[in-house]
């Protein structure tokens, strides 16, 4: 068999296809894809930026006029003359800020021990089937809408909480925290704090449980092998391991509690005066103030509400930032 020699014309052909160039340059379709996905990924940045911008833009006038007094005074009034023209106004949200912090802190203080106990129970005590059921129940509670907590708190919890507040005041009233000037216990920050605590328990519990579930098995076994009881094991292994996650979860719960509107509005009596007595039936809340005032507000007052919204927004961002920071920092050290 003879091989045919390649035709001369083909060998000399000047326009042979060039060897393929290997490149990592993405194709057009990939460039488009990456651009679209990146744009979508930036949506959260854009939305958060727009929120800050528009609230600041609308509240600018009030913030400039009131200056730092917006945060330190508790006056909220618009004075009009007979012709319904605005003569003078002054807006300050100190009482609301203090009230927000009191309710949210109370909620965290109540919720965290319960959350840690139930998370530890789910992670280390409950048999698998019971655990699955408990996890599902807690997750279900996290899905309940806030309006449900609000009206449940108003109709079901309030009578009980009022009685508890009375008891606490009667037997522990010598502690300044539980003292009241007038014996009015209805719609107090205490009740709002309890409702908020019940709302954040599912969040903090599921975060704490997830952290405890990740405790390395070898450390648990090592503790048992050294003769630890279950409690010693939890104290020596699980709690140091999960501390960061629990604190981060508590901060997230704090952020949630500060921004909650409807549930607080239904159970709290809003008063424009700083009130430190948690059992007394008067409190403040930035989010509830916005809801309360919005219906009847003139354009000027709406601007003040926007400014209040901006403060609330920045506050929750800050709390979230700190939570993120704590989780990351302790996370890298403890694990």
């Amino acid at each position, binding site marked *: 068999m003879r091989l045919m020699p390649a035709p001369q014309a083909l060998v000399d052909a000047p326009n042979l296809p060039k060897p393929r160039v290997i490149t990592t340059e*993405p194709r057009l*379709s*990939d460039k*488009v*894809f*990456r651009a*679209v*996905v*990146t*744009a*979508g*990924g*930036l*949506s*959260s940045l854009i939305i*958060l930026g727009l*929120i800050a911008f*528009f*609230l600041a*833009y*609308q509240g600018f006038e009030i913030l400039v006029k009131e200056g730092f007094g917006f945060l330190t005074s508790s006056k909220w009034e618009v004075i009009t003359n007979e012709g319904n023209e605005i003569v003078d106004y002054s807006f300050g949200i100190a009482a609301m800020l203090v009230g927000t912090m009191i309710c949210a802190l109370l909620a965290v203080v109540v919720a965290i021990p319960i*959350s840690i*106990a*139930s998370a530890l*129970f*789910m992670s280390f005590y*409950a048999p698998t089937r019971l655990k699955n059921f408990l996890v599902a129940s807690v*997750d*279900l509670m996290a*899905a*309940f*809408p*806030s*309006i*449900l907590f609000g*009206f*449940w708190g108003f*109709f*079901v919890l309030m009578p009980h909480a009022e*009685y508890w507040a009375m*008891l606490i005041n009667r037997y522990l009233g010598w502690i300044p925290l539980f003292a009241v000037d007038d014996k009015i216990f209805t719609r107090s920050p205490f009740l709002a704090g309890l409702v908020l605590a019940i709302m954040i328990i599912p969040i903090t*519990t599921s975060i704490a449980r997830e952290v405890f579930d990740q405790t390395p098995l070898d450390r648990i076994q090592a503790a048992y092998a050294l003769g630890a*009881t*279950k409690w*010693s094991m939890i104290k020596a292994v699980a709690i140091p391991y999960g501390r960061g996650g629990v604190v981060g979860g508590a901060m997230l719960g704090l952020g949630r509690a500060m*921004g909650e*509107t*409807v549930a607080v509005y*239904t159970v709290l009596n809003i008063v424009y005066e700083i009130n430190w007595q948690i059992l007394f039936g008067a409190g403040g809340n930035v*989010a509830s103030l916005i*809801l309360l005032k919005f219906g009847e507000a003139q354009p000027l007052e709406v601007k003040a*509400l*926007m400014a209040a919204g901006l403060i*609330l*927004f920045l506050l*929750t*961002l800050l*709390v*979230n930032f700190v939570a*993120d920071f704590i989780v990351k920092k302790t996370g890298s050290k403890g694990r």
Partner: protein
Amino acid sequence: MTTLVQREPKKVPTPERPWRPSFAQRLSNFGVAIAAVLLTYILVLVTPMKGLLPTLIFSGIFAIVLGYLKGFFARGTMAGRNNAVGVFLSLGMVIALIPIVSILYAVVSNGYKGLHKGLLFQDMSLAVATDPIAQGGLKHAIVGTFIMVAVALAISLPLGILTAVYLTEIKGPLSKPIRFLVQAMSGVPSIVAGLFILSAVVYTVTKSYSGLMGSLALTILMIPTIARTSEEVLLLIPNDLREAGVALGGTQWRTVAMVVVPAARSGLVTAMILGIARVAGETAPILLLTGGADMTNYNPFSGPMGTLPFYIWKSFFFGSPEAVTRGWAGLLVLLILVLLLFFLARSLSTRKASR
């Protein structure tokens, strides 16, 4: 020559699990609980303290003390402390569960009185909240909620999934800040979302309340839920699939669209459902933005629109017994909706996990 000796397969005894509580231990635990309740009962009978609160508190205290004593007499101080903590932790679990049971009970026991045949097919255009229960219903509210959530979903599902794809597939330099921003966005108070739409869209562009405004606010609350759940789902897709897609000559776009996303489909559906459940009962922005109509409005772009949360809110603030019953019925319907979504999402995700 060696012969292969056929050995009898050795019988492996089922491994014992000595850490599991034996029957006797369980019985004694049960006995501790019963004894605690009995002691409390006697205490409440003898002393002037009456009511549920002291009963619960003293049962807890007695259970802890008895648990401690039981362990102490069997094995000493450490065992006693261990038992006491065990009882204490389970009490914490019980306390965490009480509100769930109480809420479910309150909604069902109050809400069923407000149910009637026309509830889902009539609206409130011809009825007032104080009318007898049989008049009027929640058709307008249900229609409004569905439309509003659907519009919000149409906007936030693409954005949420794109964010998740950016975080898991492109992994660009912005991944870290974006992950944090999504986290921060999930903490944005709902009323702030409402105020933002109010200042950015209602006051500057549309000048009127409508369902679309509510949807836009819900979008802000929905994106982080969808993005975070989708990210978790996409992270579970094994890298082998991506490598296989690329090895077959696919571009990144083809790999993500034809391999990764279809593999994660059921998880993405779960993310969608969780997003819906997150916003279905959201009240504060709805109160600010939608105007809350009493008649059925099918058009989200114009005119006020009623929703379930708004209906519930309005009914409770009317205050008359009929109106309050309507409010509870509305809560019952909302709760059923949320429960359905929750169990749907759950069954999808567990089926995924067991595969």
